[in-house]
C-alpha cells in the first residue's frame, strides 16, 4: 500500500494467543494494519475471527502476545499501565454491542462520568443532543430503549472529543431503523470532528458507509477494500 495519508494507529505483526482453555486459541495470527486520520474503517468477518480482540488491543484495553501498535509516533505496546490508562482517557472512545451503561446513573450522568476526567470535553448535554437524545437526559438506562441506550453510549464515547472511536458491533442488538440512527450519529461525529473511526459489524450492508472495508478471517486480514465513496447511513438498507 502506497498511501500518503498519515496513520493514526498502526499495527505490525500482531498476534494474540489465549491460553485459558485446554488448547491455546490463536485469536490473532499476524495482523498488519493502519487506520488513517479521519477515515471510517469497517471491519467485517465471521464470528470468532478475532475482530473484537484486535479492537481491544488498538484501544489499549488489552495487550497483544506479539507485534507492535503505534499511535502516531508512540509505541502503544511499550506503554506501561499508567500510560495506557491516560491513552484511553484522552484519545479513545469506545462503543460496545451491549451498550454497557452504568445502570445506577442517568443518561446525562453516564456521559459525565467520561467528561469528568477528560481534558477538553464537550458538555454532556451537547453530546447527547448530537445523538438526538436531548429529551432523555435524566432517564436511567432501564427507562431507555436499546437504541436509545446505544446512542447514550455513543454520546459518552465522543464527548471527550477522542482521536479514535472504536465501535464493536454498535448495531448488533438493534433493528435496522434504530441501527441507522446510531450509525448516523457515528457518521456525524466522524465528519464534524475528524475522528478516526473503526467499526466492527457482521452486517455487509454497513460496509458501504466506510472509506475502507477490512475483511477478517481466522485471525488475519483476508482482504482490504477501498470504497470510492461513502454512502450516508440513511441510504443503507438491510
Amino acid at each position: 500500500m502506497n498511501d500518503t495519508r498519515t496513520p493514526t494507529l498502526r499495527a505490525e505483526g500482531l498476534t494474540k494467543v489465549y491460553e485459558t482453555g485446554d488448547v491455546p486459541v490463536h485469536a490473532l495470527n499476524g495482523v498488519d494494519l493502519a487506520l488513517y486520520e479521519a477515515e471510517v474503517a469497517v471491519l467485517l468477518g465471521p464470528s470468532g475471527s478475532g475482530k473484537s480482540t484486535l479492537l481491544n488491543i488498538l484501544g489499549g484495553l488489552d495487550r497483544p502476545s506479539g507485534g507492535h501498535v503505534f499511535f502516531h509516533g508512540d509505541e502503544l505496546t511499550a506503554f506501561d499501565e499508567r500510560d495506557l490508562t491516560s491513552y484511553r482517557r484522552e484519545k479513545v472512545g469506545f462503543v460496545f454491542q451491549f451498550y454497557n451503561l452504568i445502570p445506577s446513573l442517568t443518561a446525562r450522568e453516564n456521559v459525565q462520568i467520561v467528561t469528568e476526567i477528560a481534558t477538553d470535553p464537550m458538555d454532556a448535554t451537547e453530546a447527547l443532543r448530537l445523538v438526538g437524545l436531548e429529551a432523555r437526559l435524566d432517564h436511567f438506562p432501564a427507562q431507555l430503549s436499546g437504541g436509545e441506550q446505544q446512542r447514550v453510549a455513543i454520546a459518552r464515547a465522543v464527548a471527550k472529543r477522542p482521536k479514535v472511536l472504536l465501535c464493536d458491533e454498535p448495531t448488533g442488538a438493534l433493528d435496522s431503523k434504530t441501527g441507522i440512527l446510531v450509525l448516523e450519529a457515528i457518521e456525524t461525529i466522524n465528519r464534524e470532528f475528524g475522528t478516526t473511526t473503526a467499526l466492527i459489524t457482521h452486517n455487509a450492508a454497513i460496509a458501504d458507509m466506510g472509506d475502507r472495508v477490512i475483511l477478517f478471517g481466522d485471525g488475519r486480514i483476508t482482504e482490504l477494500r477501498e470504497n470510492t465513496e461513502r454512502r450516508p447511513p440513511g441510504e443503507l438498507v438491510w
Partner: protein
Amino acid sequence: MVSPLTKKLLRDLWRLRGQVLAISLVIGAGVAVFVMSMGTLRSLEEIRAAYYERHRFAEVFAQAKRAPERLKTEISRIPGIKRVETRIVEEVILDIEGLAEPATGRLISTPEGRPATLNLLYLREGRSVARAQPDEVVMGEAMMMAHGFRLEDRLQAVINGRKRTLTIIGVGLSPEYVYSIPAGALMPDDKRFGVLWMGREALEAAFDMDGAFNDVALTLQRDADATAVVAALDRLLEPYGGAGAYQRKDQLSHWYLQGEMDQLKTLIVLIPPIFFGVAAFLLNIVLGRLVATEREQIGLLKAFGYTNRDVALQYLKLALALVMVGILVGFGSGAWFGRVVTGFYADFFRFPFLYYRLSTDVFALAAAIGVMVAALGTLGAVRQAVALPPAEAMAPAPPTFYRKTLLEHLILLVHFGEPTRMILRHIIRWPLRSSLTVLGVSLGMALLVGTLFFIDAIDHLMEVYFYRAQRADFVVTLVNPRGPEALHEMARLPGVLSAEPIRIVPAKLRAGHRERRASILGVGPEADLMRLLDEEERPVPMPPEGLALSVKLAEALGVGLGDEVTVQVTEGRRPKRTLHVVAVSESYIGTPAYMGLASLNRLMGEGAVISGANLMVDARHADSLNRRLKDTPAVAAVTVKSAAVESFEKTMAEAMMAIISFYIGFAGAVAFGVVYNSAQVSLSERARELASLRVLGFTRGEVAYILLGELGLMVLFSIPLGGAIGYGLAWFWTVSLDTDLYRIPLVVEPATYGIAVLVVVVAGLISGLLVRRRLDGLNLVEVLKTRE
C-alpha cells in the same frame, strides 16, 4: 457539581441499604462494646485516682493484736514513710431490726473532733463523731442504703460482750471500702456487712485498748522501697501479734476493684475484635460480590481511562460509608450502655461520685479502628477490582461452568426435583462462597453461644461452690480461737443438725521465688460441710498430712502434686514449715489452701482450737438460731448461705446479667446481620437468573424456594459449626478471664445451644421473609433489560 461517581456511590448505598444496615449493626456492636468498656474503664480509672489522692488512701497496711501507741513514733522513723495513722479496728455482731440473721459490723476508729490523717472519710450526709458521745457512729453508705437507714436511726451491736445501742449520725465513704466485703466472703452483701466509724476514745474504752492500736496504715514517699517498708513494719509489729503487713495491691477493696478493671481491660481487648472481625468479614463478602456483579462497570470505567486508584477509591469509599454508619450507631449506643453499666458499677463500688465520662479520644480510637476494619474488609474486593483487566471486564461474564462433580453425582443419585438440584448445584459450584456464608452465620451463632455461656458458667460456679464444696447452712466465726468445747456448744444450739470445726490461719506461701498470701483452712477428717473437690468436681477426702492447694493457688505458685511449699504462718507463734502438696482442689472462687485439721493444729502448737464452725441447720429453727447467735458475745460473724445466695442473685447476678444481656443483644444482631446479608447478596447476584425462571413460567413460590432453600440449607450447615466455634469461644473466655478472684468453669448447657439455634433460625426466617418480599416485587422487565 456532585460527580457521577459519587452519585453512583450514593445510589449503590441506597440500593444496598439492607446490607448497609446489617453491617452497620455488626460494626456498631463492636464500636459500642469498645466505647462502653473503654469509657467505663477510663471513668473508673480517673475517678479512682482522684479519690485515692484526695482522700489519702494509704499504701501500706498492717494489723496486729495490740500494739502500744508509742510504737507509732518508731514506725514513722522507717525510711520512706510519709504519714502514719494508727487505728483500732474490730468486728462485731450487729442486730438490725427487720433482719433475721445477725449482721457483721466493722468498727473503725476515727479521731474525735478532727479529720483523720489517712483514708479520709467522705461525709455524704450528717456529721462526724463527736468527743464524749461513745454511741455515735458514721455508717458506710452501702449498708445505709441496703437497709434504707436514715440519720438518727439506731441499731444494736454486741461490743466486747455487751449489747449497746448505736446511733447513726453520718453517712460516710472511704477509699478503703470502695468495695466493702468481709474477709473470706465471695461478694458484697451490704445488708449483712457494713463499715461503721466510731470515735477512737469510745473504741479504746470498749475494747480495753487504752493507749494501744491494732491496725496501722501508711503512705510512702515517692521513691520509697515498699517491700523494705513492709519488712520493717513486720519486724516492729511482730512482738505485738502483727499479722503481716501488705501493700495497697493486696488491700481487699483495691484488689477487687483492680480485678474488675483488669477484666474490663480484657473485655476491651477480646470482645470488640471479634465483632470487628465479623464485620470485616461481612464487608468482604458484600464488596467481593459487588465487584463480581459490577465487573463490566469496572472494566468500563477503566476503558474510559479511570485509573486503578480511582476504582479502588470508589469501593473504599463505599466501605467507609458503610462503616461510618456503624460507627455512629456504635457511638450512640456505646455511650448509652456506658452510662447504664457505670450505673451498675456505682452500685458495687462506693465512690463519692461515679459518672461515665465521654472522652473524645475513646471515640477517636473507636472510629480509627472502624476505618481500619473498613480498609481490611475492602482489601480483597478492591484488589479483585484493580486486577480486572479492562478487556476481560468488557466481555460479558461467561456463563458459570456447571459440571457434574463426583460429589454432585453422589448427592444427585437421590431423585430431587429440578429446583432442589439447582440449589445443590449452586452450593457445590461455589464451595468457597458457600462455606464463607456458612462460616459467617456460624460466627454469629458462636457469639451467641459464647455470651450466653456466661450465665451457665455463673450457675455452675454457684452450684459447685455453694452446694458441692461449701455446704454449710451457717458459717460461724469466733472472735478468738477457742477449745473444742466451743464446737459442742454450737452443736447444741437450736436447730443445729451437725457442726464441724473450722480453723483458719493466715499465712504466706512460698515456692521458689514466688510468694502468695493465703488463708489455710483446717479440714476435719470427716468434714462433710466443707469439701475438697477433684478436677471432675467430685468430693475427695483431705489427706491428713501435707498441704492442699486450690487450682489457682497452685498455678500462681507454680507447683503441682508432690512439690514443696514453704508455709510462713503470720499469726500466733508464726511457725514456718515446708510441706508437700498432697492435693490440688477445684475452687472456682478465691485461692484457698487446706490442711488436715489435726496437722494444722500441731503446726500452730496451740492445741485443738477452732476459729469457727460450719453448721447444718434445720431451716424451721433458723429464726431461733439467729436470735441466739445475735446475743452470743463470742461470735464475730455469721454467714448464712441462703442469704448469701440470695444476695448474690440480687446484686452481682443482676448486674452481670444486664451486662451479659447487652452482649447477647449484640451477638443476636450479628447473627441476624450475617444471615440477612447472605440472603440479600444471593438475591442481587441471582436476580437475573431468577427473573429468567419467572419468565419461563416458574411461580413466585418456586423461585423463592430456589433462593430461600439455599439460605435454609446454609443456616442448617451453620448450626453444628456455630455450636463448635461457640464452645471454643467459651473455652477462650475461661482461659483469658482467669483471675485471682475467680475462675470461670467451662460449662455450656444444651439450653444455651438451643437459644442460639433459635435466634439464628428466627433471623433466617425474618431475612427469608424480607428477601421473599423483594423477590415478589422483582420487576422482570427491568432486571432483564439492563445488563448488570
